[in-house]
């Protein structure tokens, strides 16, 4: 059973000059965590805003919880929880006041749905008299999530919830989402620019320039990666990238943090590449074969 189904969705800005969505198709199943993975400007926020009835699509259809986003937007607004990319709570109100306010906005009370937010809210409850603006980034996210959950929505939309949050809080945040899925069978659509978070989702869509590059489980995407992938390091990383790209047998080469990831065809061997790099004057050369990450898949699909 699909909680969201999107068909051929188009959206342009500036009277058609900027294409934000170029025909997006996907379904989200009941009770899964669906991830939209892509860099800034991929169209993630636009897609969220159409699904949360905040924007009208130019063409195509979208249904959320069985309702049409254009015609039945009022029904959708009763049953969704939305956490925008920017922290959007009242900074001059306390933690408790924010939660109570959003509860009344959705015609409910904190007590009624406390079981839903209990796990999350417990962590910030010691600070319930503190103003939201004075909370740390991680605590703000927990409060925002509590506020988006307090009315027991059927589907939760989280637009880049972990952007600007420290690694520990990010990990905690994903654990909370997993719990919500397991305990309450909640459907969650979440976007992130961090490829490493993709593995936390049940299914993901890799997004780029207003289009979906692929939709699959994270493992499925990795499995469909057929190239041989090596990681290469040396003493002069900057020059190395240029030289790798010139090397025969190397198909692609990208900088990946502390190492370079290259795909090679069958003609090139470890030893041949090592010898070539030594000839070029490199030292401390390390070459290893690795299994691809989502980011490798993204880079691959992008080309």
């Amino acid at each position, binding site marked *: 059973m699909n909680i969201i189904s999107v068909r051929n969705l188009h959206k342009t800005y500036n009277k058609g000059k900027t294409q934000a969505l170029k025909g997006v198709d996907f379904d989200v199943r009941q009770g899964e965590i669906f991830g939209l993975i892509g860099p800034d400007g991929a169209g993630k926020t636009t897609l969220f805003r159409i699904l949360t*009835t*905040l924007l009208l699509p130019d063409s195509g259809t979208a249904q959320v919880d069985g309702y049409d986003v254009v015609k039945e937007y009022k029904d959708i607004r009763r049953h969704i929880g939305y956490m*925008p990319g920017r922290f*959007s*709570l009242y900074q001059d109100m306390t933690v408790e*006041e924010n939660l109570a306010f959003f509860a009344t*906005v959705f015609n409910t009370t904190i007590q009624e749905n406390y079981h839903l937010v209990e796990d999350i809210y417990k962590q910030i409850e010691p600070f319930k008299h503190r103003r939201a603006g004075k909370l740390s980034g991680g605590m703000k996210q927990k409060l925002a999530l509590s506020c988006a959950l307090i009315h027991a929505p059927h589907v939760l939309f989280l637009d880049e919830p972990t952007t600007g949050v420290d690694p520990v809080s990010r990990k905690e945040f994903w654990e909370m989402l997993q719990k919500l899925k397991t305990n309450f069978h909640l459907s969650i659509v979440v976007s992130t620019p961090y490829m490493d978070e993709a593995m936390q989702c049940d299914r993901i869509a890799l997004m780029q320039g207003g289009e979906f590059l692929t939709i699959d489980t994270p493992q499925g995407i990795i499995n469909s990666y057929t190239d041989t992938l090596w990681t290469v390091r040396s003493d002069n990383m900057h020059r190395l990238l240029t030289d790798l790209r010139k090397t025969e047998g190397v198909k692609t080469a990208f900088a990946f943090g502390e190492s370079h990831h290259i795909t090679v065809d069958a003609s090139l061997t470890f030893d041949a590449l090592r010898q070539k790099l030594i000839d070029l004057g490199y030292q401390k050369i390390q070459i290893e074969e690795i299994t691809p990450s989502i980011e490798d898949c993204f880079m691959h699909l992008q080309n």
Partner: protein
Amino acid sequence: MKQFLSFVHKEFIHIFRDFRSLLILLIVPQLMVIILGYIIKNDVEDVRVAVIDPSHDVYSTQITERLSANKYFILQDEVQTEAEALDLFRKGVIDLVVVFCPEFSNRLIHSKDATIQLLSDGSEPNQANISVAYAQQVINSFRQELPSYYSGMNIQVNSQMLFNPQQRSDVNFVPGIVGVIMLLICCMMTSVAIVRERETGTMEILLASPLPPLTVVMAKLVPYMIISLFNICTILLLAIFMMHIPIAGSLWLYMLVAFIYILTALMMGLFLSTCVNTQLAAMLISLLMLLPGVYFSDMVFALDSMPAAIKSISNIIPAKWFIAASRKILIQGVDILYVYKEIIILIVQGLAFLLLSLKMFKTRLE
């Protein structure tokens, strides 16, 4: 309803936790009234008086002596002609000229048509008004003390303001200041408050909630309406008890007109908030609306002396109608029959802004 009230409560939290808005809403209006009231009611002392007395007879001398004995007046040298007095006005040496008619005592007793003319400096209308009033008091008290067998004897006092014949009452400023302050609170603060939700992104959550967007903005208007009513009451209290401004008409009628004006100004603010996207823009446009409010509302500059084109532009400014109506009520003491036109215009303007806002109102982000 519970949603609505909880929203109103939230708005009050925003107001009371922000020192600056609290200052603008609850302190500045009263302060403005006190400051302006002080400037205007500033006790006029040391009024420099010149006397033109062609006859120098017994009564004119007595009046001159009384003037010079009064603590508010300082008698300057006597002048002979009005031209000479005008010259002294221009030099700023005198503030008031008392002109006795020729053969003052004679005409007082026999032909009973003695006149005294008071010339004041209209470039400072409030001060001029007060000094004329003082001089009239002195002359009146003299008249009352005349022996009874002179009954029927009359001194006609004509006062005339030079340089600015438009006479302005010292109570004019209360209607004016209320008109402008309400514009500030209802139009500026309201539109800023609505736009702030959009700017900080909270509107995004509210729009994605079942709360009808119109409820959101209406709930935001309520606190400002309450605060405006509170301000009108305190300003009236200040005017009556601190500045002793006489109120001629019905306070209830005034409150009714003020309430209608507040609603109109709130609708203006609502309309403005649908047109702009940033708090800064809302503030700047409100200020742009505030300035014509000051210029064209007869508060500082007399509309009568403006070109016809500008006069007709001034008709679209709600503040003008409110100020006109409140002057009639507070100063002239008229009843509702004389201000119904202003009331109807304010209601029509308010409805027009409401309809425009509803037309412009977005239930989505764009």
